[in-house]
């Protein structure tokens, strides 16, 4: 049976795309054909008053950020002054090319009409204030909300972007974000994704990155919401001396399916990458991490490290970790490690033997496990506290 011959299901008809079967390797653990909801209409642009309310209860992460607002996928002008060196064009970036079933997330984003912006960071600009890309969703049943943006960080620049997804809807709705990041020579780009969509949300995210010589990407992903989440990261390490740092925390709640799939392509010599994910699975949550590292034949002296550690809190939940190394060069350092464990009984006993009640002791251990990633970010005290606050709320509600 091949893909073309399968009759389109309702989800495919509604989105106008073919969805991969589980035989497509990159979708083996996330079965969009059976798990993706049926979405028939683009969410309408909410009124100013409704839009304002959507963000309630989601306090700002960084007090000094300049935030670009999107409500139900529509860009809203809020007149927040941008820091010097940053310019925004309200123009939809061109759709990214789709290369077969592996790029289904791109295909879906292309097919549901999106709003978007193009952002430029000027050459040598050292932008201290973070730029927020805030998405709030009404999440009306059956609706879609999609955005697309392209960020160009010119050579020598330093900038920070916080892309955040917020919602409370328990009705089935779809949000999608496709982002391209072009990082110039000697530039540093910090990109932080905070996903807090409602429990009914299917969320499909994709970030494509290209790094020039001696540039640096610091990517952070915090998944703390959603029902079916697929966050893809594709990095083309195209300049010598490029460094990729990816850190992530995936909080997989009861009934949630959260998939983070990363592909790092080392295409030139002397590049480095470090990838660390910590995951907590509660209830009958399902977590997936696919981490691919490709090292081209000419990419000698690549140093790429990857680790994925999971705390599985219940017998019902599960986590699938698939590290994948494709190395064609002979002088490289590549390592990966994946662990899935329960809370360590001896650790728990030690804390309880000091009088800490079991629930509180478990809480301390789970929190320690994920907070470590945040504390190593170097994102500054305010952001780290904000992320830890989001983690704490999730843990309170889910463990």
């Amino acid at each position: 049976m091949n893909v073309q011959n399968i009759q389109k299901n309702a989800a495919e008809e509604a989105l106008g795309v073919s969805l991969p079967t589980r035989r497509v390797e990159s979708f083996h653990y996330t079965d969009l054909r059976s798990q993706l909801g049926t979405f028939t209409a683009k969410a309408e642009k909410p009124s100013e008053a409704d839009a304002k309310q959507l963000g309630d209860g989601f306090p700002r992460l960084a007090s000094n950020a300049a935030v670009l607002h999107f409500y139900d996928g529509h860009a809203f002008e809020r007149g927040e002054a941008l820091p010097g060196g940053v310019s925004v064009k309200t123009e939809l970036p061109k759709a990214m090319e789709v290369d077969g079933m592996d790029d289904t997330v791109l295909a879906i984003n292309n097919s549901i009409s999106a709003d978007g912006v193009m952002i430029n960071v000027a050459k040598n600009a050292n932008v201290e204030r973070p730029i927020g890309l805030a998405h709030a969703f009404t999440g009306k049943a059956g609706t879609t909300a999609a955005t697309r943006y392209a960020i160009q960080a010119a050579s020598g620049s330093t900038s920070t972007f916080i892309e955040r997804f917020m919602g409370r809807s328990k009705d089935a709705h779809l949000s999608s974000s496709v982002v391209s990041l072009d990082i110039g020579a000697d530039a540093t780009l910090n990109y932080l994704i905070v996903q807090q969509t409602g429990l009914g949300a299917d969320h499909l995210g994709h970030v494509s990155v290209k790094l020039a010589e001696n540039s640096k990407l610091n990517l952070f992903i915090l998944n703390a919401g959603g029902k079916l989440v697929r966050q893809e990261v594709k990095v083309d390490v195209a300049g010598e001396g490029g460094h990729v740092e990816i850190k992530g925390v995936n909080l997989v709640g009861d009934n949630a399916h959260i998939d983070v799939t990363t592909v790092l392509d080392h295409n030139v010599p002397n590049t480095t990458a470090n990838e660390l994910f910590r995951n907590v699975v509660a209830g009958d949550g399902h977590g997936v991490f696919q981490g691919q590292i490709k090292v081209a034949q000419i990419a000698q002296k690549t140093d790429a490290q990857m680790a994925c550690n999971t705390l599985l809190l219940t017998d019902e939940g599960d986590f699938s970790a698939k590290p994948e190394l494709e190395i064609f060069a002979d002088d490289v350092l590549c390592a990966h490690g994946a662990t899935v464990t329960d809370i360590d009984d001896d650790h728990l006993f030690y804390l309880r033997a000091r009088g800490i009640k079991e629930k509180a002791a478990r809480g301390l251990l789970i929190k320690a496990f994920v907070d470590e990633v945040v504390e190593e970010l170097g994102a500054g005290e305010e952001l780290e506290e904000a992320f830890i606050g989001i983690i704490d709320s999730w843990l309170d509600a889910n463990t």
Partner: protein
Amino acid sequence: MANKLKRRKEEKMLEIKNLHVRIAEDETEIIKGLDLTVKAGEVAAIMGPNGAGKSTLSYVLAGKEDYEVTEGEILFNGENLLDMEVDERAASGVFLAFQYPMEIPGVATMNFLKAAMNSQRKARNEAEYTTPEFIKKVKAASADLSIDFNMLKRALNVGFSGGEKKRAEILQMALLEPSLCVLDETDSGLDIDALKIVSDGVNALRDPARAFLVITHYQRLLDHIVPDTVHVLYNGRIIKTGDKSLALHLEENGYADVIASAA
């Protein structure tokens, strides 16, 4: 330090009667009819060869679930200790200084200490310490044990040397003010200087209302922490009880003759 402790010296604090314990997983019996009484104010040493059941006894007192009590009882201040949860035992005054203190990544020592102290106070319906009160107490207690206060900002026991870990155990003991302190081979892995600091820390906590169960292989710890009673544990039972001279006898002659005369 121990003004909250009201027990008088002659009262039985810990009574272990005909205790039988096996490893839950494979049902191997380790403790085979152990009797032991420790009074308030007493320092009781438990000595014995490898495999006698010394660490098992300490874990059973603290409530580790890997062990199953099949017979007998343990009374702590007249209450059935075996009915209590692990954290209830701690809040009611049982403290185990671990032979191998756990390294717990990501949990800052200070946060842990505060959680432990306030959790116990809450369980006893006492007011929780405020942060300044807490910090003052920790600073004073850590200075007594020559512990660098900055070390306590690090993750609990992570990267601590063997000596630092044992000192951190005694620090916890000093801060939590338990009434029964069980020291499981606290001397293992300590050099002479660290042994002195740890022993001084323990001696400073000696109190008519507090009892110590000092579990050790070697007599040398008992030069520093001088016991009132010495019990020989062998094959899951107390086979001989004496005063501190028994420890010296064991040091000189080994366990063989004590074991032979008990058989």
